[in-house]
């Protein structure tokens, strides 16, 4: 499958100016070579740290849990005191936490928590010390495996957030419809080149 996009309007004019020695750039032409790469992804609400102002990401249609394909691990967490993380979060719902580590020469810092909100959604919280590398196409992934390697398995490696420049550093809360796997791992990842740029091996913690 191949889908081509046309050159941006004005590109020819720009190139003509170049021929006249005027310093200007020529727009390049982009082609998507495989339509199946389009990732519906889960629906995402990026709450920011102040919370409350949920902003559904228009760029990511709601793929829901069926798209995610993650089996409900059916985790029950006995004995976790309710720390009152959020209204509506059940004390039996699991909470995972971990710290990012560098991968493949790229620096990743900060902590991450995964809270199962009990309503089919998971709240992902990146700490104030969070940072990840400004690689092309950086994404945040929750996976049921501890290494992604060079190929995304879109049924197991769920892209839960696409980083913007501002989001590469600092605290953030993201709510995403997702069923957490039994042993989740969180990655920062360069989607185009399939390179892990950070990893957090999370473990279940008490609330």
């Amino acid at each position, binding site marked *: 499958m191949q889908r081509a*996009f*046309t*050159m*941006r309007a004005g*590109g020819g004019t720009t*190139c003509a100016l*170049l021929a006249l020695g005027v*310093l*200007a*750039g*020529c*727009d*390049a*032409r*982009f*082609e*998507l*070579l*495989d339509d199946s*790469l*389009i*990732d519906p992804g889960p629906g995402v609400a990026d709450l920011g740290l102040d919370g409350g102002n949920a902003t559904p990401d*228009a*760029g*990511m*249609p709601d793929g829901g849990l069926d798209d995610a394909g993650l089996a409900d691990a059916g985790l029950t967490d006995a004995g976790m005191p309710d720390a009152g993380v959020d209204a509506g979060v059940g004390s039996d719902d699991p909470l995972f936490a971990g710290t990012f580590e560098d991968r*493949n*020469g*790229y*620096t990743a810092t900060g902590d991450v928590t995964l809270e199962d909100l009990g309503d089919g959604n998971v709240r992902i919280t990146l700490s104030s010390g969070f940072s990840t*590398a*400004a*690689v*092309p*196409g*950086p*994404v945040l992934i929750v996976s049921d495996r501890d290494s992604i*390697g*060079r*190929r995304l398995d879109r049924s197991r490696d769920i892209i839960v957030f*696409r*980083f*913007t*420049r501002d989001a*590469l550093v600092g605290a953030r809360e993201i709510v995403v419809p997702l069923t957490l796997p039994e042993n989740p791992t969180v990655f920062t990842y*360069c*989607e*185009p*080149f*399939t*390179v892990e740029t950070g990893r957090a091996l999370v473990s279940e913690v008490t609330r």
Partner: protein
Amino acid sequence: MRRVLLAALALALGATLATPTAAEAQAWVRDPGSGYVQLGYRVIRDADRFFDPSGDVTDIAPYTQHTLNLYGELGLVDRWLQLTVAGELFRRNVLVDQAAVAGIGDFRVGLYTGLYEPESSGRSDPFPVRITAGIEVGLPTGDPNPSPNVSQSDPNFAQLDAFADTLPTSDGEVDVTFRLLAGWGTRIRRGSRPSLDVYATGGVGYALRNTPRRLPAILEGAGDIRDQLQTRLELGIRSTRPVLDRFWFAVRYNGLYVVQNRNASGQQSFAGLGDGVEVSGIGFVVSAALWKTLRVSFGADGAVAARNLPSAAAYDLSLSYEF
């Protein structure tokens, strides 16, 4: 001797993995009105490994790059001034089976002046090395921020834009490089056996990098690309035996090193055009005379160490003409 040196010049145009064009000026400044033009094709095919920012090699999705390069020299003032133009007429970056971006690449314009020529002393090669200084300006004629050409309201915009960002055809900035070049060539006579023509050429350059314009959103506000030190050395040889005298054989080394805050993480670059790119590369080239000064050359280069660069061999095929 002059003939040997000029013949060497026709060949001494090396490739690097990380410079915008495959050809570069050498120490021999052309006579007024004489010139050299080269059209070359270069490919880096299915690079599935990558030198990461720390210099380690990691697996990546396969990457291929095709470029059609133009290089020209024109002598303007005897010994003192030569104009050079180098650029990518076409560049196609491909994430294999994923996405591709194609367009014109970046150009460089340079001026070179002969600081020292052996003949200028009036004696016979008292110091048979010629030394030339030059300045080159890199122009961001390509596209540092390719667009997926779908509306920003398109639900797939973010993902497609990320793929497009990965495949720029330009470094996006005007930069200036100061270069100091040296060249030497001679004929080694071996009694009754055919003589050998040999040459050595090399140089160092300091590239003052700048702040790219129109960066992908993920890199906005990243600041200047860090300055780089360029080094190169090329050694060539040919026999004067009839027929064999049509062929030059050369080996070459190319180096590109970050000299500012070398261990800072920088902006990163996957396509070899952004910040933090380093390479120590070696390669070879074979050049054959087709007719008079029309030559065809084939070469290959590979990196022995690098940062922020795909790990794969680059192959060049070029046609050149000297007038």
